[in-house]
């Protein structure tokens, strides 16, 4: 039983006078204790999914789904305060742009302390509670690998660099001891050492606290090192989803393959300075998505049928949507 289960999530919005489907029948489910990676190119709609789950979408956007449940409860039909309660207790989100996601007029410490749920604060009197909050905050900051807590807790968002910001966002997300952590590109721009530390922290939390994680990124290296399962998104459509190791070994969708191939780290057979395999072109803008399979024009295996949206197919727990999948002949 997945804790988060999304089926056929469609998101429509108005841009430039036309109504476009930014997300087109996206499926995503996360099991308890699982680290799921959500991969896709920039603009493929990853952050939109995150927003849809956290309920942070503008009201004028149309969001429909066959199913969108949290532990069996329907998120879409829920009252605002119930949903807020879930967000406060169970789900934590790390947004993509950490500095922008922090109140510019409040110190980091205050914001962090504010996020600590009341039930986790010890003491009755307000100064005791205050101290308790401070202690918790310092502990958290250390946990995510910030040493100089004095300096950073009293700093304002504009004074810190974005990697510190990301760490703070993670700390803020972890403070409420959630069941699910949604991390939108938490390691962007970090150098490798710090990145590894953060990833290790997440992995450890996953193991010790059985924290489920939805890990959004296009850093395949990071994903490959920690995720159990992976969902690949292209242009608002889920193209493939399944166990990490299966996908790595045998990607079924041409796009997934192209994605994996483009990371030189995955390929020990690649001679230095050789051309990397890649798909032609770039992701289309939302106003000009091709009909049917949205990869169509770029796909090396595209044929006539591709103008029809491919149905979701399933092999064991490996789902894909493609008319002409790879490796299928071998199966």
């Amino acid at each position, binding site marked *: 039983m997945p804790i988060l289960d999304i089926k056929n999530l469609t998101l429509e919005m108005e841009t430039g006078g036309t109504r476009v489907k930014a997300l087109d029948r996206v499926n995503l489910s996360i099991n308890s204790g699982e680290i799921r990676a959500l991969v896709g190119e920039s603009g493929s709609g990853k952050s939109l999914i995150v927003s849809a789950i956290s309920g*942070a979408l503008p009201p004028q956007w149309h969001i429909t789904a066959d199913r969108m449940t949290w532990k069996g409860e329907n998120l879409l039909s829920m009252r605002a305060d119930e949903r807020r309660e879930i967000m406060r207790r169970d789900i934590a989100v790390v947004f993509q742009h950490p500095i922008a996601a922090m*109140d*510019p*007029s409040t110190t980091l410490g205050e914001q962090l302390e504010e996020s600590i749920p009341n039930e986790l604060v010890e003491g009755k009197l307000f100064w005791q509670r205050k101290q308790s909050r401070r202690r918790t905050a310092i502990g958290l900051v250390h946990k995510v690998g910030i040493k100089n807590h004095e300096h950073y807790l009293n700093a*304002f968002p504009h004074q810190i660099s974005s990697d510190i910001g990301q760490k703070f966002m993670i700390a803020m997300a972890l403070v409420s001891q959630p069941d699910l952590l949604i991390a939108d590109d938490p390691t962007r721009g970090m150098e490798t050492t710090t990145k590894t530390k953060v990833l290790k922290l997440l992995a450890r939390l996953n193991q010790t606290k059985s924290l489920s994680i939805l890990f959004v990124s296009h850093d395949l290296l990071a994903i490959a090192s920690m995720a159990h399962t992976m969902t690949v998104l292209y242009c608002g459509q889920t193209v493939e989803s399944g166990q990490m190791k299966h996908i790595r070994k045998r990607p079924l969708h041409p796009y997934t393959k192209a994605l994996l191939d483009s990371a030189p780290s995955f390929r020990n057979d690649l001679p230095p300075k050789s051309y990397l395999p890649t798909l032609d072109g770039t992701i289309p803008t939302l106003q000009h998505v091709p009909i049917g399979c949205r990869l169509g024009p770029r796909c090396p295996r595209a044929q006539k049928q591709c103008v029809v949206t491919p149905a979701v197919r399933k092999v064991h727990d490996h789902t894909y949507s493609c008319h002409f999948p790879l490796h299928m002949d071998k199966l």
Partner: protein
Amino acid sequence: MINALSRYTILFTLTLLVLAVLSFALIYLFPGDPLTNLTGLVPQNDIQREALIRQFKLDQSYPIQFYHYLQQLFLGNWGYSFISGQPLREEIGIAMPATFELSTYAMVMALLIGVPVGCYAGLKSYTVSDYAINTASIFSYSFPVFWLALIFIMLFSLEAGIAPLSGRISLLFEIPNVTGFILIDILLAKNINHGLALIDAARHLVLPTMAIGLISTAAMIRITRRSVIDVMNSPFITAARSRGLSNRQIFMRHILRNALLAILPLMAIQVTTLITNAMIVETLFSWPGIGNWLINAINQRDYPALRIGVLAVSTMVITLTVLIDILNRLIDPSREKFERGTI
């Protein structure tokens, strides 16, 4: 911070110095006799004239004259009104607080009504009530203040007879000028019927305050609304929401704070507009404030009065703006540079 404060102080002094230089230059720029323009005194004969020139060091070089001028400014010797013969410091001491009082009430009105209504409109952005508020505010904001005041006079004074149209209080009351704020002075005054006087003064205050206040309130609503909408759309509010903070928490701790921080620098401009409007409205309501005084001075070609009056008002306005500026800097840590925005 002390660094910034000292920088402000230096720049502020510099600005005042520039103002002083300008007002000093006016002695020579205004038509007529520099001696009269400086002192407001008309020498009866040449001997007296010579004596005055020597006394005010007008026979010395410009820097020395200016130094002397500054000295006199500091000592409070601001010269005499050419027309009434009264010391200018006294006249300004009466007129300035009157304007200040009027502006203060209008500002309070703008804040008390403008900010909550603006917040409300911002929170309910793009709903019917928001459109209604927005339309009303853009209409009120477009009124030329003098016309608005006239309309008020016609409607409320002449037709309805609700409020009187001139002065600060019925002239039958004799209120000694202590603080310059009529309501306080009434409380300080002896031998009068305080209740009656307060009611009378309040009735006199209503229309001018409304006229200025309405425009400022409209401006305030627009600024606040814009600011609230901007803050609401900013990602950190989304983030706060997804952290499960309650609406109240978000509004009080994040939206309000950031919205008001953004409003503060704009208030500096509002203060200027407000005082300008107050000065214009004063002439219509015969409010004995600095605007009325200055307009009379210009009609009477009372150059010494003009010079000091302009210096005094601009000093007041600049001081207010700088104070708001400093305040803004004090309470808003995130703003690196203070930028003025628009409504």
